[in-house]
């Protein structure tokens, strides 16, 4: 996530994921999916237990 002195991003800095261009955003998406799974499991438990 750092850039070399000429200002161009390093090849590894680009995530290559459409719509999620920085690694910080990738990590936010991952944590968002975690929250989603917890919410789904909690809902399943509350509705059917």
């Amino acid at each position, binding site marked *: 996530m750092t850039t070399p002195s000429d200002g161009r991003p390093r*090849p*590894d800095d*680009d*995530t*290559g*994921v459409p719509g999620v261009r920085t*690694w910080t955003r*990738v*990590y936010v*998406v*991952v*944590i968002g*999916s*975690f929250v989603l*799974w*917890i919410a789904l*499991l*909690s809902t*399943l*438990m509350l*509705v*059917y*237990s």
Partner: protein
Amino acid sequence: MNGADYAVLFGVLLGIAGYGMWRTRHRRDLSTYVKGHGTSRWLVIGLSVMATQASAITFLSTPGQGYTDGLGFVQNYFGAPFALILISIVFLPMYRRLGIHTVYEFLGQRFDSKTRLLGAVIFLVQRGLGAGITIYAPAIVLSTVLGWPLSLTIVCCSTLVILYTVSGGSEAVSVTQTWQMAIIFTGMALAFVILLRELPPALTMSDTLALAGAFRKLRAIDFSVNLHERYTFWSGMLGGMFLALSYFGADQSQVQRYVSGASLRESRLGLMFNAVWKIPMQAGILLLGALLFVFYQFQAPPIFFNTVAWQQQASGPHAAALQTLEADYARTHAETRASIDTWLAARQRQDTAAEAAAIQDAQASRARGEQLRDQAKAILKQGAPRLSTNDADYVFITFVLHQLPHGLIGLLVAAFLAAALQSKSAELTALGATTTVDFYRHILRREAGDEHHVRATRWFTAFWGIVAMSFALFASMSENLIQAVNIVGSIFYGVALGLVLVAFFAKRVQGTAVFWAGVASQLLVFVLFATLEISYLWYNVIGCGACVLLSLALQAIVDRRPGPSSLPG
């Protein structure tokens, strides 16, 4: 199993093994043998990391865990996404930059030789034991399918895995894992669909889940703060995060999977693939187990799912007692079934009072059935003292063999064995590589060439395969497999992670301080494990925390000592 099943089984297994051996037939240098070609894309890395963790145990034992205890085990994985993010940010770039073969090589570069060896020994002991446990899984499948004694199937499975791994190394594992995972997921998905179709037509999906919920099988999350409760949200988040951090960050069998990426980006995306899909995958497999529980409320289950062991004992001196218990159990199951039918009828006419009464009756008769099972297990234990009476690992294979159509049985059995092949291969390759790189090459044969070390790695891989087989032959477990593997890991992983964290973040700490801190912390975990009754996940936190704190304390003491010896290691 009939001819079609065997054709599918051997076709799939020989195809995978042959493809792996053919693709890797010209590998001769140590780096490629251990790390692969370094050209893997993110999906291959992601599946490879997933496949290394998701052994046959995952697909065989986890449904059994869901059957007996419900979805609660999924909490074990709650810390994994956070651990994988941390590894992606900190561990991975460092490992790639240093170009190391093993994690412990990194400890040697950062500290000293003895710390490198300590890390390697911790890995070898825990992974060697873990490999012994995981060889059980395919052996259980084969012993149930073929009716062979467990010990014979352990020897056969171990030999197959050793030959496959020794011939191809890490790359053979990588190039076939995508195919193996495809077969496994296809097989599991088909089993899920067939299970739903085998349930009574009057039972809707909502009824099915309500029935599972009534028997506490859908309690996925427990927010209570209870150290003695094995799986809670908090033990999963904190203990599970440390477990995942250690496993993915400091266990050679995983590190060698993701450092083989074509670039840092590919490796990172492979890890994030796992961070997103690990929890739903495990939850899905546990849900399959919970639905199996519902299925076996309508279809009479065997009183003991390890039917081979049951049949052996049922013709022995305890035959009469076992047959009586079996008949009583069948009667109790019929009572449970009748109560559930009443519950379903009440639910359909929305009579909540009758619904509650019927489910209470069902729970009571099921509890009586469990008492009968306990009595049967006690008698089995008298007849065969070394027999594990935990039959949860046999639940899913029993369903597969008795309920799936021919052809598909062969595919599912192939899926189990493929999963065993891939995870065992990854483990054995890592054990062989660590022994070669961190002991043999580092201490004994520094000057030898690559070809010599590839040969040595093959021999050490075979050696560890034999160690794992011996452990599996002589060990007897009271836990089911998926928990046993995690318990063994948790005893050692905390300290392994502590060593790596000190290496990364405590720049002031030198080799001697971290080495003795590691030794003391491991001893502390052994003592606590033997004396305390807390969830095993907490040992990951304790081992890691003790190692980091003791390292800092010992270094502070060393720094205060005057003279030239104040900077050892």
